[in-house]
């Protein structure tokens, strides 16, 4: 019975871990995977095409893959799951198919009404569905309030839809222009002829401006090439520089007198994809990938990023933390020896995967681990888990494991939702482009957040645990161990919050010439410092005991959430880099839950067992 339980636990754990291991033991060798690992330049940095696919899809659809019901030609439907890179491959090389995949999410009833649909009937639309309404959407998008803060929900939604359609069109024209009525290779050859003809005319007339070039063919080709150059993806590496395919043709044809090799390969890819020739496509994909510069030389890590995106280590860690939470509860209810010991081991595995994810991020981005709100959430969780592991190491009661798992789970969940905005490994703007300050100020302040949250969640666990024991009361020894853990976390929090805040001031002094400017984010950090300092002074002065410590620590959660997210929502000051409307709702929910916790503890105090058990 006992061994059966343990086997089930570890089977579950292995199931959670599998996505991290799979790409290593069973690498994907499909043509899409080859393209997916190919480095391209986008958003100012070199990344695998797979990452571009994921971020574009995230922006448009809000997910990294697509599940939909495809309507087949014989009238039946089929459930399909499309990975981001497969989708992007279709968008680039086989647009007729891509246009049928429902990727545009529309929720707003007024927009659905514009398309003659009732709310709730359909959520995702394909480009082909929306094409008849393009003019209408554009017209509506032109009329919205230019000030993004004063837009209503309809205006925000229509603006977003318009932006997504524009993004889709831009990406879709990377390899060949919209409304192309011939095959891609013959289009490329046509362009070669036009460009060469123009070059000959220049040479003959001795003029440098194309004013007397009245060939309608050339004009059309020039128009199409300029449309292709609107893409954000620098797909090709041509003569050692990152270029868009359209620009490769403009620059390369006059130089070499023919179609550059890369473009020949692109033509082959498109033809094979559109003709359904899998073998030819795989061959051409390998050919295209071979043009990419040697990875070792560039200092970029597209293959590692490909693995990182495929394995999603933070999601794996999140799943493991959920498992640990369940196991600890089971341990407290039934047999501690089985559940708690294994929970502790699984927690370690989760923490290691969490750590590996962080390390990979650092290597890929070349920055310190925290560069934006998303990565701060990942790091806050990591710090809290690390501290709780230390606590659990000294006292195997499951308290540390539970705190680690809940904070880890919640922060990774928050991070997951913050990643909807696309690339989370973006390049840093000029002021922030300093690894020294990113790795000192930002790291210490985030560690402070992590520790304060840990203290608060230990407080919540204390209260829950106390209620759970009901009339029997919590043993004195247990209460003391909670007291020590929360006290430790608060000390840790004060140290790092203070140092982080002052380092922030010094950074501000270095870049703007002022140490302190009452910026909302600075104020938020100061509030954590003052609050934790207050708790320590109150303890020292004997004004509070364990119960006060617990409840003040829970208030610490409120303050930290404010400092971390609330201040960004104000839209004031230098740190307002991540304004979020929907997040405000969740902040209020969180605040309410924390105060409710304190209020309930006041109504139903945790009882303590007078005599020490045993």
């Amino acid at each position, binding site marked *: 019975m006992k061994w059966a339980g343990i086997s089930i636990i570890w089977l579950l754990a292995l199931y959670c871990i599998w996505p991290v291991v799979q790409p290593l033991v069973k690498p994907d060798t499909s043509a899409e995977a080859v393209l997916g690992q190919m480095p391209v*330049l986008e*958003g*100012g*940095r070199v990344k695998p095409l797979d990452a571009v696919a994921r971020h574009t899809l995230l922006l448009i659809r809000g997910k990294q893959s697509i599940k939909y019901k495809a309507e087949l030609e014989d009238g039946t439907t089929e459930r399909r799951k499309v990975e981001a890179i497969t989708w992007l491959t279709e968008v680039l090389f086989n647009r007729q198919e891509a246009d049928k995949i429902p990727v545009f999410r529309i929720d707003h009833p007024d927009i659905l009404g514009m398309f003659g649909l009732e709310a709730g009937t359909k959520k995702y639309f394909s480009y082909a569905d929306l094409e008849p309404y393009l003019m209408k959407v554009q017209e509506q998008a032109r009329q919205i309030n230019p000030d993004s803060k004063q837009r209503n929900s309809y205006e925000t939604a229509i603006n977003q839809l318009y932006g997504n359609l524009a993004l889709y069109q831009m990406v879709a024209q990377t390899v060949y222009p919209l409304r192309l009525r011939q095959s891609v290779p013959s289009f490329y050859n046509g362009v070669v002829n036009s460009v060469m003809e123009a070059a000959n005319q220049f040479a003959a007339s001795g003029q440098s401006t194309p004013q007397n070039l009245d060939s309608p063919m050339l004009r059309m080709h020039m128009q199409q090439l300029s449309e292709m150059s609107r893409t*954000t993806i*620098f797909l090709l590496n041509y003569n050692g520089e*990152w270029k868009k395919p359209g620009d490769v043709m403009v620059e390369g044809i006059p130089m070499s007198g023919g179609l550059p090799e890369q473009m020949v390969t692109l033509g082959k890819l498109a033809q094979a994809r559109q003709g359904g020739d899998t073998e030819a496509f795989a061959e051409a994909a390998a050919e295209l990938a071979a043009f990419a510069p040697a990875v070792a030389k560039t200092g970029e890590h597209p293959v590692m990023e490909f693995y990182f995106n495929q394995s999603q280590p933070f999601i794996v860690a999140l799943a493991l933390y959920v498992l640990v939470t369940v196991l600890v509860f089971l341990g407290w209810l039934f047999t501690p020896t089985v559940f708690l010991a294994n929970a502790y081991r699984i927690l370690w595995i989760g923490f290691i995967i969490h750590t590996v994810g962080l390390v990979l991020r650092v290597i890929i981005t070349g920055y310190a681990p925290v560069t934006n709100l998303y990565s701060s959430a990942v790091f806050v969780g990591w710090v809290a888990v690390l501290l709780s592991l230390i606590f659990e190491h*000294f006292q195997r009661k499951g308290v540390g494991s539970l705190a680690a798992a809940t904070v880890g789970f919640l922060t990774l969940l928050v991070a997951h939702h913050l990643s909807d905005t696309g690339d989370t490994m*973006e*390049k840093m*703007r*000029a*002021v922030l*482009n*300093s690894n*020294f300050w990113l790795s000192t100020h930002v790291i210490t302040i985030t560690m402070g957040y992590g520790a304060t949250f840990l203290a608060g969640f230990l407080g919540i666990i204390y209260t829950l645990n106390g209620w759970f024991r009901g009339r029997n009361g919590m043993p004195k020894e247990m209460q003391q*161990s909670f007291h*020590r853990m929360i*006290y*430790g976390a608060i*000390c*840790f929090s*004060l*140290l790092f919050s*203070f*140092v982080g805040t*002052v380092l922030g*001031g*010094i*950074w501000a*002094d*270095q*870049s*703007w*010439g*002022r*140490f*302190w*400017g*009452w*910026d*909302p984010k600075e*104020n938020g950090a*100061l*509030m954590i410092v*003052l*609050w934790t*300092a*207050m708790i320590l*002074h*109150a303890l*020292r*002065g004997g*004004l509070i005991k364990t119960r006060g410590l617990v409840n003040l620590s829970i208030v610490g959660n409120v*303050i930290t959430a*404010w400092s971390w997210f609330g201040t960004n929502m*104000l*839209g*004031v*000051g230098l740190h307002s880099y991540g304004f979020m409307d929907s997040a405000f709702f969740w902040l209020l929910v969180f605040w309410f839950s924390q105060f409710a916790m304190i209020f309930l503890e006041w109504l139903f105090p945790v009882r303590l067992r007078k005599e020490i058990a045993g």
Partner: protein
Amino acid sequence: MHILPFFKRLLKELGSLRLSVFLLGFSVLLVFFGTLDQVRIGIRQAQDIYFESFIAIWRYPEFWPGGNFLRFIPVVLPGGYLIGPLLALNLVLAHARYWRPRWSIMGISFIHVGILMLLVGQLVTNIFQEEDYMWLDEGGKANFIRSFHEDEFYLTKQKEDGRLGVFSYDFKDLAKGAVLEPEIPGQPGLFPLQVRVREVFNNAEINQGGAVMGRETYGITRGIGAQFNLGVKAIGSFNSDERRDIRTAVVDVLSEGEVVGTWLVSNVFEERFPEQEFMIDGQTYQIGLRFKKTYLPYTITLLEFNHDRYPGTNIPSNFSSRVRVEHAVNGDEKEVMIFMNNPLRYEGRTYYQASFAKQDTASMFQVVKNPGWLVPYIACILVSIGLCWQFTVAGYRMTRRMK
């Protein structure tokens, strides 16, 4: 007769941990409500009302849920000027009371000395910090900086040796009715005239069309004010970081007791009009009000400005200015790069890369003079040592107890 026991009691209370806890708690509330109000009134004004005042009152915003009646309940808080000094006093007294020469609590002294240094350092900064700026075009040079907040009244005159004679008078010291005798030390008689201040406006609205809509012309007879028939009205401060108050004055120029004319001077004229000039005895003088200009004993030349972007995007990766500093007095000459997070510290002033214009060919530096700039660095080190010390001691005890 009961003074002494009362005094003792007061001292005890002022140095008590209970007071520390209350003050810290109130400062959390103060910072929170102050931050919240920044949305309504901006950072600068919130700073005045909450952090640089003795009592602050927060009101529930009307447009929040339930605001119709909740807005009548004021939240009264002790302001920053009340909490700050009290905390400092509390800290000193508590130390006097609890301090013992023991290794295990050595860190606490470090922490509190550091905190005290931070508070005092911030006070020093508030009082002595000067913030100026310098705009340079590529290839251009300057030996002066302009103030962000201060203005000055000035008179200038081309001297016989080809140099410029400058008399300046801080706007904040201009008083209605005062008569200025423009004297420059060592150069007596350069300005053989007097200036009588008729009106001073801390912020003004200036428009064409004379005395209409509450505006007055104040009997201006010469210069831009007379030429365009300008009317002036006093208005309240903009209280803004982005918009400077329009400091304005009306002055008479007197020569040997006779009024030469009445001028309108304002800090908004410099960008829009040529300088106002007048002649006395065949000598030309310039008169005006401008953003305070401070002359430096050295010249800075902008050799090159660079605005680097990440490839294929418009995201800036760096802004940098290559400048040459030439010191006229001690002959010092050097070339320096100023870029983000890497200012130039020179002769007590610090030059920060702050802005750019003219298609990346002009660069602006923020210039800060802050005699207390090193204090936070030292304070931070002290507090960090203290905290690490204390928590190591506590951690050691805790792990021993846990085992």
